[in-house]
């Protein structure tokens, strides 16, 4: 009788545990940065609900996220040098370290074991054990004259490689990392003036770095033996005067549709269309302001663009068949970021100054609904866990 009641208690307890944490997948989850308040929202995009808020992540201006390969943990890179591992299922901080004075972004290795963070101050890259957040390597980004450069455009590539660029002297560095005692660096010195951000193509072949100090981009072909850096689109600004840039564009992901890639011009209110076959310019598309994010809808039928201050209340949509702007949306003040659901049925956008995240249907480009968020910036769905370079 006693054992029966014990069994009953055990059953009751396990039932309670199940009730408080029902099983669910992470495939439709996401994290939204609330940049001013050092918090993040956990959301799900099947129904568009907010599941919870995690606080205590520090200065999240310009924060970005990568995911563990099981798509359960979000690694949040904060501006203040904080690296926070958030458990999106339990909606709580799993681990947090202050890894530098001032950082800008990060990446996770192909095998999911290492998280690399790029830092402005002190300039360099730190590598962490993805499981424990223990620092396993520190790579100072020393320029020729011995100064430390700000590191930008850190991205992962196949073969457990990380690529990054040095803002101050224009190097591209190629780091192969297989453990604290098994890594090496190859440098491509002084490749271009002031690289500001970079991306990896989804096939892991090209590392493209945008340049602020001159027109054009740097293209590193990782399939070439040996890999080589080339400057492309060097004359994209020809014939028109550079305008002031009130926010640096981001090269995140790969806005590619068919044989064309879509890239923000620097200091010009244009999206540059470049052929990925021969890297020649196909067209400059005039848009409403300095583009910040130029993002292809999954499938590549349309490309969505947001803009720098003072034009950051708008979104424009480019038809990749006609290379024309087919829609201008006015979501509100301070549209900072967009994120597509994995199959592209919706796009979410953060409207910072109106403390909202809006969800638009892509089929007719109309607003579906909104949810409150405190000065939202980056939106990151877990689908990134399984993409190279994100």
């Amino acid at each position: 009788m006693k054992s029966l009641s014990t069994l009953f208690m055990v059953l009751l307890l396990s039932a309670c545990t199940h009730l408080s944490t029902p099983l669910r997948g992470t495939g439709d989850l996401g994290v939204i940065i609330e940049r001013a308040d050092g918090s993040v929202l956990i959301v799900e995009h099947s129904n568009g609900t907010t599941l919870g808020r995690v606080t205590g992540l520090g200065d999240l201006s310009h924060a970005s996220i990568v995911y563990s390969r099981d798509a359960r943990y979000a690694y949040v890179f904060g501006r203040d040098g904080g690296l926070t591992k958030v458990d999106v299922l339990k909606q709580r901080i799993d681990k947090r370290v202050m890894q530098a004075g001032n950082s800008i972004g990060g990446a996770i290795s192909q095998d999911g074991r290492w998280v690399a963070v790029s830092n402005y101050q002190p300039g360099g890259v730190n590598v962490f054990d993805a499981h424990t957040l223990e620092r396993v390597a520190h790579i100072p980004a020393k320029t020729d004259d011995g100064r430390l450069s700000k590191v930008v455009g850190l991205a992962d590539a196949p073969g457990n490689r990380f690529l990054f660029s040095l803002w101050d002297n224009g190097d591209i560095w190629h780091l192969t990392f297989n453990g604290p005692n098994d890594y090496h660096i190859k440098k491509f010195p002084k490749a271009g003036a002031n690289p500001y951000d970079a991306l990896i193509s989804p096939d892991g072949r090209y590392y493209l770095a945008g340049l602020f100090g001159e027109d054009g981009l740097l293209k590193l072909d990782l399939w070439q033996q040996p890999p080589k850096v080339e400057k492309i689109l060097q004359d994209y600004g020809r014939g028109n005067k550079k305008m002031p840039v009130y926010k640096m564009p981001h090269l995140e992901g790969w806005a590619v549709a068919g044989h064309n890639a879509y890239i923000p011009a620097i200091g010009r209110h244009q999206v540059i269309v470049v052929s990925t076959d021969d890297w020649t310019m196909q067209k400059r598309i005039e848009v409403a302001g300095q583009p910040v994010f130029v993002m292809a809808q999954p499938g590549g039928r349309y490309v969505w663009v947001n803009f720098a201050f003072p034009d950051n209340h708008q979104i424009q949509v480019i038809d990749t068949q006609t290379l024309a702007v087919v829609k201008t949306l006015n979501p509100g003040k301070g549209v900072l970021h967009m994120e597509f659901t994995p199959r592209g049925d919706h796009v979410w956008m953060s409207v910072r100054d109106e403390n909202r995240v809006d969800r638009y249907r892509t089929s007719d480009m109309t607003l579906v609904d909104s949810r409150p968020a405190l000065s939202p910036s980056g939106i990151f769905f877990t689908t990134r866990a399984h993409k190279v370079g994100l």
Partner: protein
Amino acid sequence: MKPWLFIFASLFAGWVQAQPDSDRQKAISHIVVQDCGSCHGLQFKGGLGPSLLPEDLAGKPKEYLFVTIKYGRDGSAMPPWSRFFNDEEIHWMVDQLQKGGFHEKP
């Protein structure tokens, strides 16, 4: 002191103390925190742009900061802001920055 800086210093020798009204102050604070913050950090600890913390601005002449904000700095990523703020407003911004008067929620 560089000659051009001396000229500007003389021009603004009488540092104007007139202030924007409180609504405008609020709007400027918002832009300074959010938009300047995208390069200098929301807490002004620096980023692509340098730190704007009071202790880091302490040694810098007001006129130099004024000129930097108004006209931007060639050869750097700092754009000119004269399109969005008049002189009086920039003076006020410089004063506030040096005092640490801008916060996330003004």
